[in-house]
């Protein structure tokens, strides 16, 4: 059952990711990324991490992607990007490098972990009393300080977003012309 769900969803996940790259419309890319994030959420469920499954759907597929779509709508949807390559051959080089990276990971995994169906230890003992409770126990004992630091990080991020995206009131009109060098004052 486990294996069937994996083999059904893994091609969906990879196909959504690949199609995301070939969409010229940014909204379509965002929607395909949501499909990919949902499949990864199901993989979390298969890997006995139900808490991360829920967090993935709420935070990633919910909040972050809504933010993305909001910004896409804000900036305008119909702006298709040009397909002109600034650097010659960059596209093919990038695709070759990507395929090389995937093959490298494949061989590294085959060498390090092995593709055999080795016995996977049971996870029920670790998830004693429920995954959320077990995770909370680790999070609030071993990881209290990092947890508190993330709260500072989130506050700083919120303030930074407000400062960056604020519209300057008295700012001069944005220009792309080169700055004029002021003439040196004539010495009397």
């Amino acid at each position: 059952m486990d294996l069937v769900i994996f083999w059904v969803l893994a091609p969906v996940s990879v196909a959504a990711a690949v199609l995301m790259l070939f969409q010229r419309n940014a909204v379509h890319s965002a929607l395909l990324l949501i499909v990919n994030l949902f499949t990864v959420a199901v993989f979390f469920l298969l890997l006995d991490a139900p808490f991360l499954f829920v967090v993935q759907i709420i935070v990633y597929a919910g909040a972050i992607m809504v933010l993305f779509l909001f910004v896409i709508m804000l900036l305008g949807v119909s702006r298709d990007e040009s397909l002109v390559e600034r650097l010659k051959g960059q596209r093919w080089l990038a695709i070759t490098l990507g395929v090389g990276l995937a093959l490298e990971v494949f061989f590294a995994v085959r060498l390090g972990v092995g593709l055999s169906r080795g016995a996977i230890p049971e996870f029920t003992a670790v998830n004693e009393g429920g995954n959320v409770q077990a995770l909370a126990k680790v999070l609030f004992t071993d990881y209290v300080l990092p947890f508190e630091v993330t709260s500072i990080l989130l506050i700083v991020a919120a303030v930074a977003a407000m400062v960056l995206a604020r519209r300057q009131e008295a700012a001069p009109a944005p220009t792309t012309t080169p700055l004029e060098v002021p003439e040196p004052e004539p010495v009397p």
Partner: protein
Amino acid sequence: MRTPIAYYLILAGILFAIGTVGVLVRRNALVIFMSIELQLNAVNLTLVAFSRQLGDLNGQVLAFFSMVVAAAEVVVGLAIIISIFRLRQSASVDDVNLLRG
């Protein structure tokens, strides 16, 4: 029948490679940003898969923290994209080739 952990690792590697290609090939800053999200997500999958294999919850905690940091990163990154768009009227990274504002 449980899925071998290696399958998840290879899938995560493929997703990470697709994200890398996306960052290198696409010119729209928003799509580049989405590709980075894809990469972060692939790494999260690796962390959870190893956590399952080793019977250790620390991997799941680390994946949780990485999600929090990704959320903060998205907020700041999108704010930067908006402020660049105000300046240049474009979300393409080719138009942002000068350090001068």
